[in-house]
């Protein structure tokens, strides 16, 4: 897989294989979670009443910091944990109390959990064997999945002869070969280095689209979530904070937690409001009239890429005066840290050949009212 280029992958993706056709005819399953509660011990609340609908064939991501309950939710889907309260319905069937070995749901574990006493082939065939598929059919299915996921030459190896990336793919293939209604992925890329990780993110997303299978993916990395997902649920302390498409969650975060978790730094407390103007740490700013309710105590989100450093302020734009404190040259873009009214403000400018400002320069920043978002605390 080291010689895999994006072009070659794209090529592979357009080739229809037998597995592709089979996948296309299969019906993916939706997931309905209702009122899930889970506690560990006396005072650790992992899930505090979670309701969630995941559509059939969707790449759905559970995103949140460690301890937010995302892994517990995934384990309840897998049947490895029983909820204290609430119901789980997959593909119209109630699964809440069905043990894991009777659920058509498979998991790709963070540690991959490949059986060390078995060869790659026997690892891949394990689920089929446990389901009672005869040996001949098992071999055929294993060869098919190995070809599908481009692992043909690894099948006869021992598990301890594989690299991290290879293990990851074997773990994925071992789950896929069972053709589950839902595939669960528990931070499957977190142990890989950055380059391989980026490559597998693309591959995994393509694979999901080709198979049309419902994927539920867990991660704490918001970039990974945005790249891969159809929809994201952001969790914190056992509660769902927001469910939406990547752009909804990034551009219109439901609250300050989601905004911060999605990587936003330009969040300013709203101190006062007059008509369609709000007072924040960086000064008075005008919002779109009537559209955004906000009260003192809420936050104003200013996305750094919507800010412009310009001498002339376009008609109807807000403008602020600031001083450049730091400049980070990133090649495709330039990041500035400005000081405005005694507060730091991040600005990201695409590198289009415009003037590059130096630390110490006094500049004027403009932002369109439509790009300003108010966020509840």
């Amino acid at each position: 897989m080291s010689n895999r280029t994006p072009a070659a992958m794209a090529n592979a993706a357009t080739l229809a294989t037998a597995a592709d056709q089979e996948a296309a005819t299969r019906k993916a399953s939706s997931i309905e979670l209702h009122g899930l509660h889970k506690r560990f011990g006396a005072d650790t609340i992992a899930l505090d009443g979670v309701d969630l609908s995941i559509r059939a064939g969707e790449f759905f991501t559970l995103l949140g910091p460690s301890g937010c309950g995302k892994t517990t939710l995934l384990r309840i889907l897998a049947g490895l944990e029983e909820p204290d309260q609430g119901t789980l319905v997959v593909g119209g069937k109630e699964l809440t109390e069905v043990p894991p070995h009777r659920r058509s749901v498979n998991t790709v574990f963070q540690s991959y959990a490949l059986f060390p006493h078995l060869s790659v082939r026997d690892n891949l065939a394990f689920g089929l064997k446990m389901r009672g598929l005869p040996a001949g059919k098992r071999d055929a299915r294993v060869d098919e999945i190995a070809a599908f996921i481009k692992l043909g030459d690894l099948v006869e190896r021992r598990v301890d002869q594989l690299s991290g990336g290879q293990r990851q793919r074997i773990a994925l293939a071992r789950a896929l070969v069972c053709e589950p209604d839902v595939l669960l992925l528990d931070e499957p890329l977190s142990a890989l280095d950055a380059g391989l990780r980026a490559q597998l993110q693309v591959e995994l997303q393509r694979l999901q689209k080709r198979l049309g299978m419902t994927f539920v993916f867990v991660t704490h990395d918001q970039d990974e979530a945005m790249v891969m997902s159809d929809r994201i649920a952001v969790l914190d302390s056992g509660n769902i904070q927001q469910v939406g498409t990547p752009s909804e969650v990034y551009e219109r975060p439901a609250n300050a937690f989601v905004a911060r978790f999605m990587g936003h730094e330009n969040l300013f407390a709203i101190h006062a409001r007059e008509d369609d103007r709000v007072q924040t740490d960086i000064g008075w700013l005008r919002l779109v009239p009537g559209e955004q309710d906000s009260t003192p105590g809420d936050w104003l989100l200013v996305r750094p890429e919507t800010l412009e450093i310009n001498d002339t302020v376009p008609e109807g734009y807000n403008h602020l005066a600031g001083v450049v404190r730091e400049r980070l040259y990133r090649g495709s873009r330039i990041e500035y840290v400005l000081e405005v009214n005694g507060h730091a403000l991040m600005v990201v400018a695409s590198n289009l050949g415009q003037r590059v400002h130096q630390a110490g320069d006094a500049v004027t920043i403009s932002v369109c009212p439509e790009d300003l978002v108010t966020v509840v605390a």
Partner: protein
Amino acid sequence: MPGTSQHLMRRRAVVAETRHLLFSVGPGALWITLFLVLPSAYLMGVAFMTNGPYGLPQMPLTLDAFERLAGFGFLGWSPGNLYTLLRSLWQTLLSTTLVVIVAYPIAYYITTCRERWRPIMLLAVVVPSWTNQVIRTFGWMNLLAPGTPLSELAEGLGLIPPNMGLYPSNFAVTLGLVYNFLPFMVLPLYAAFEKLDGAQVEAAQDLYASPVRAFRHAVFPQTLPGLLAGIVLVAIPAFGMYVIPELLGGGKGMMLGNLVAMQFSGGSNWPLGAAGAILMLIATFIGLFAMRRIGKRLGGGEEVVI
């Protein structure tokens, strides 16, 4: 499952887990309880009973056995049993000290050798202890008997009277104990030396200049947990040793283990034997307790034993 309360589900899980625990751990726990805890408890009880006509214990409860152990018998006080006790203590102390003196340089030497040789060297030290204790002791009987080269050498040097041989004697017992327990001391000491922080030792050599002081301040404290583990591993079983004094010691080399065993064979005195066993148990638990305490204070002492 609407309708099933949180409380009920949790209770069901606890019951299932407890049943699992009982089925997995239960048979073994029951076995050890039935065939070791119960017999030991019975033995404890025997120590407080009266000696019957055939050496079997009888009611009423009494402290006679302990008085006998301290030397008070039908014929007034005689020091025989006390001598045995003191001899056990002395042999334990002496052999443990000698084992430390031999094992310390050996364990150190192994760590200075090339890494690929170390497992083989450890195996070489341990293999003799895999042979049966009776056979090993029998080997020493052959070596120390009258007329053997070693005995004749000792005779020639005037260490023993002519035609006596080196065994049976207290010397032979000490030798047998050292031989038997050497590997028990080498292994934990080796583990301690292997973990030794070389940088600290070098720093100490710079600081103190003299190797003796460097040893005292840097090497010795770091090997102390292994040393203490070894001492417990050697001293406890040495104190209760039966085979070696029985074969190499003769009548004047008897230790507590032999005194105890004697009371249970040939219709002697079960309560007296049981009282001796209690003494051994007390020594064992004091050793283990001291070990735990010291291990906790130094850190890492326990893991060496376990």
